[in-house]
């Protein structure tokens, strides 16, 4: 039976440096395997659409620009993504990866959560087509 068993810890804590990381002012290094924002490499993709099919939260949309020449654009929604890395697991050509440095994604507007990955001319082409009246979004399979 004792009172104030924690006294030793208090003294120790008082005279040692606090355990706090000074985060917003000094950046921390995330571990190597951290599952952050999804990164897509359009050069390697063959358009098997497996990533889209098994995504638990519909965060990935693979838009076809030219199926024969293997030109695809990925529309990725970080706000829907649950960062499970199932798509990375499934991709046989290693064109998907989860970055361990892009995890500070907070934003004051929702526009930041529609990310297009792909060749620049393809994205421009798609956006242009979407902006035209009468024609809907390109079909995704």
């Amino acid at each position, binding site marked *: 039976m004792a*009172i104030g068993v*924690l006294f030793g810890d208090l003294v120790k804590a008082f005279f040692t440096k606090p*355990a706090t990381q000074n985060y917003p002012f000094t950046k921390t290094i995330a*571990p190597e*395997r951290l599952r952050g924002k999804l990164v897509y490499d359009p050069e390697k993709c063959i358009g098997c659409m497996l990533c889209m099919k*098994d*995504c638990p939260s519909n965060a990935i949309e693979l838009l076809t620009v030219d199926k024969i020449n293997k030109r695809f654009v990925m529309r990725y929604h970080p706000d829907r993504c649950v960062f*499970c*890395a199932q798509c990375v697991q499934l991709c046989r050509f290693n064109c998907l990866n989860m970055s*361990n440095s892009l995890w500070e994604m907070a934003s004051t507007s929702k526009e930041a959560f529609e990310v297009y990955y792909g060749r620049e001319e393809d994205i421009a082409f798609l956006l242009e087509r979407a902006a035209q009246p009468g024609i809907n979004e390109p079909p995704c399979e």
Partner: protein
Amino acid sequence: MTEAKKEKFIVPIGPQHPALKEPGNFEFTVDGEIVTDATVRLGFVHRGIEKACETRNYTQDMYLLERVCGICSHVHATAFVLGVEKLAGVQAPPRAEAIRVLAAELERIHSHLLWFGVAAHEAGFDTLFMYTWRDREVVMDILETLSGSRVHYSVNILGGVKIDIDQKLSDLIKKDMDFLEERTEHYMKVVTTDETFLGRTRGIGTLSRDRAKLLGAVGPTARASGVKRDVRVNAPYSGYKEFPVKMVIDQTGDLEARFVVRLKELYESYRLIREILEKIQPGEISTRIKRKIPEGEVISRVEAPRGELFYFIKSNGTEMPDRVKVRTPSLCNWGTITDVAVGHKLADMPMLLAGIDPCFSCNDRMVEIRSDSQPSQMMNWDGLRKYGIEYYK
């Protein structure tokens, strides 16, 4: 509140309440400070997961079910995956099973430390809460380096695991286990000797062995009352066949016993993790599994940090399950609270609630609808049949 003959004073706790980080509503009828009646109302976190499972394929379900609960996420996924593997007739490689157990035990450490801190916070012992969570960051760091996320590890895939461990990681884990073991011994001393803390735990919320059996308590809540219930020991699954654990039991059944049981389970987890890291065999970490699961039904039981977790999966030969039923440990333990609460002081209620390590998001896959205008009715089968015949006459 209805006006009874004697006016009742009802204290609601929740759904938004600082003691509970999750919504749940308790109503305690108090006489002064003494609780005379307790009811619980759940369902604020009902999201319809079981129904949603039927519209998604097995891979998607795994991630959905992982998000039943953020604290014991890995266990939910493991239970589901083990069931599906049994249905498909696939056995995950031994190394994968060992890694599953490793992750499960790391999760148990994180969950018990989290609970320990929260329980100390409920007792108004903020310093202990801060210290525990400071030390918990060690195990969170391990989990993050191991799997890539602090909460939803997503270690499992159908037919194995995603991640592997190497020598460097295993050395790191062993070193951290030593540190945590030393800290746990210290906390054990605090819990069993500090007079002010014992004043809040000793003799509070005592659940006798018979009562615990009757109410169907599971996990550490039951084990603190001397009920021998632990799926890891009673019916070993996955890697636990190869790496057996000892059951931790206490007889008194009060809050102090629950503290002691959980802390002793931590020692067991440290030991098991060291053993796995020593004896793990090299080899494959996953096997292929077909997308379509053959028709059949399966029951899968695993031991979550809070107790026995039960899954029933029925497949119909397609990519999607026909039915998934989840019974979580917290649901089994609710009955003990309303039973034990009566006669205690209002100030003890947060501690009592914390004592079973409640997890609301685990429960809420069932809604009871009560009509406000009419009193709720209960009917037996004969009465209902008669009512139906009368109604359509």
